[in-house]
């Protein structure tokens, strides 16, 4: 096809005003270019993301607005570019004046973790071996072993639940909120940043203290209507301490009863998914820059999604595609609706408390073209879209912003 140019119109268009960059543009660009690129390391998303979100917020100069989602993503990679492990003691307090629970933790860039309760009343010990995809739990006389874990939500995946309880809510809160300010403070004699920001829940605000040297948050306070509503802190923080693989495996004690659960997922090559689940999986035609396929898993039957208030039908013929971009994760799942598609509610959030209503979205491309979906950006849930497309329930959940989630959803096609 031969190109024709309208030179007169072109000249007129070029004659329109073209603004110059702002005075800080070049300096800011050079600063960002000089930052080390992301290293692709599969961190535990909850902890990694919260650390990075906070770091991203504090790189904004005092008095400026909150970091954009793009800046947050950039900071996620930068903050952890050189760390292989993060460890310390996680101290959690839910009630004003109440007692605190303490947990020793270590999180590895491989995805493995270990969380050990401290104190007589806290005998829980949990470990996850990412290489073997096995999670172990020890609690007094009971030893449990989980295999066949799903790669990510909404199905049963490994979870550093103790730390997540404190940290993952912060990720979602900061993703769902806007505004906030940063000031420089001293925290136990060390320079730190204090970020004050809304959480995204009505009437709730956060104060997050970040150690400047390591860029890691060390103290978090949640205020509801101006009153204390919970806090955690990290003591004895260490970055890049040695963490041998054996630390992420537990062995049962002599007197412990042993229970094993198989959650039903098996890792398979993408090409083998259709032979297992009986339909062609939906794969994204577009991913945000840097995301790469991490693993693919299938399950013929899996636990129902949802929660106590609204439990979905049994999950059948589930395909779960997991992608990573450094610290960011994305999980795309499909499962059969069964005979009654109307029986399904949001598989990711269930009917848990939400700060707002999900957004109804009309999907305009790919296999979901013409379908209505629900977009959920909520401080109490991982960002996600879900929809029903013919015989399938489709979920897209991960560390993406609104535009990215929708673009991924609209790029899905059968493979």
């Amino acid at each position, binding site marked *: *096809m031969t*190109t024709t*140019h*309208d*030179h*007169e*119109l*072109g000249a*007129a*268009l*070029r004659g*329109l*005003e*073209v*603004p*110059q*960059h*702002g005075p800080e*543009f*070049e300096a*800011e*660009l*050079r600063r*960002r*270019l*000089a930052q080390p*690129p*992301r290293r692709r390391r599969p961190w535990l998303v909850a902890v990694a993301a919260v650390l990075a979100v906070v770091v991203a917020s504090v790189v904004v100069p005092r008095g400026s607005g909150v970091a*954009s*989602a*793009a800046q947050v993503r*950039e900071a996620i990679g930068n903050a952890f570019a050189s760390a292989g492990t993060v460890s310390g003691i996680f101290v959690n307090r839910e009630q004003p004046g109440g007692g605190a629970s303490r947990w020793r933790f270590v999180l590895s860039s491989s995805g493995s973790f270990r969380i050990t309760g401290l104190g007589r009343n806290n005998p829980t010990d949990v470990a996850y071996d990412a290489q073997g995809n096995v999670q172990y739990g020890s609690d007094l006389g009971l030893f449990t072993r989980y295999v066949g874990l799903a790669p990510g939500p909404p199905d049963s995946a490994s979870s550093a639940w103790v730390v997540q309880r404190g940290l993952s809510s912060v990720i979602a809160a900061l993703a769902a909120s806007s505004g906030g300010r940063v000031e420089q403070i001293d925290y136990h004699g060390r320079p730190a940043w204090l970020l004050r920001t809304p959480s995204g829940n009505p009437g709730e605000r956060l104060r997050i203290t970040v150690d400047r040297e390591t860029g890691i948050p060390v103290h978090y306070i949640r205020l509801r209507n101006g009153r204390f509503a919970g806090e955690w802190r990290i003591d004895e923080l260490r970055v890049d301490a040695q963490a041998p693989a054996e630390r992420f495996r537990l062995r049962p004690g002599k007197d412990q009863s042993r229970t094993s659960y198989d959650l039903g997922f098996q890792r398979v090559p993408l090409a083998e998914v259709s032979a297992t689940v009986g339909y062609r999986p939906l794969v994204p035609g577009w991913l945000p*820059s*840097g995301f790469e396929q991490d693993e693919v898993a299938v399950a013929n039957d899996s636990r129902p999604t949802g929660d106590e208030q609204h439990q979905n039908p049994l999950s059948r013929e589930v395909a779960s595609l997991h992608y990573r971009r450094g610290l960011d994760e994305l999980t795309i799942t499909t499962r059969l609706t069964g005979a009654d598609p109307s029986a399904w509610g949001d598989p990711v959030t269930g009917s848990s408390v939400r700060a707002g209503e999900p957004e109804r979205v009309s999907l305009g491309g790919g296999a979901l073209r013409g379908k209505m979906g629900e977009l959920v950006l909520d401080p109490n849930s991982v960002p996600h879209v879900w929809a029903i497309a013919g015989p399938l329930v489709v979920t897209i959940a991960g560390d993406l*912003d*609104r*535009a*990215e989630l*929708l*673009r991924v959803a609209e790029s899905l096609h059968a493979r």
Partner: protein
Amino acid sequence: MTDEIPATDELRLARARRGDTDAFAALLAAFDESHRRLVFRLLGDRERMDDVLQEAYVNAYRGLPRFAGRSAIGTWLYRIVYNACLDELRRAGRRREVPLDEWREGEGERMEAVAQRLDLEAALAALPVELRAVVLLIDAEGLTYHEAADVLGLAPGTIASRLNRARGSLRESLELTQKGAPG
């Protein structure tokens, strides 16, 4: 635009790939005005223009190892810049003032009214983003249909039809402006 990278740009590209940020900045300098024009006309706001170009340039720099040279470096950069614009527009929930699917002949009448009372700038702003991008890339920046198709992720035939529609609307405004100009 040519598919060949000028020797100096080739050198800068090679240096930028090795982590030379000065070389990358120099490489960008040749395209920056065009990028500013495209982004400003798509977003209509100087601050957002800077934000989007920051994001696009950082993404481009990080993506240099994946630039295979199958397209011209300029086309590749336009694609990154345009995608960053779309992301920003979508984030802001106002990707299209006039949905393209609804922008049919009936809308021409509306555009005619626009053209009669407003100048080229306003007529351009009244076009759907997809039409604006096509006419800016081809007529203002000199890309070929194939290059524009590569940037916008469309078939060349679609580019040609969209270009015709965009030109038609802008031409009216341009001619009216010229007729009304003093002297």
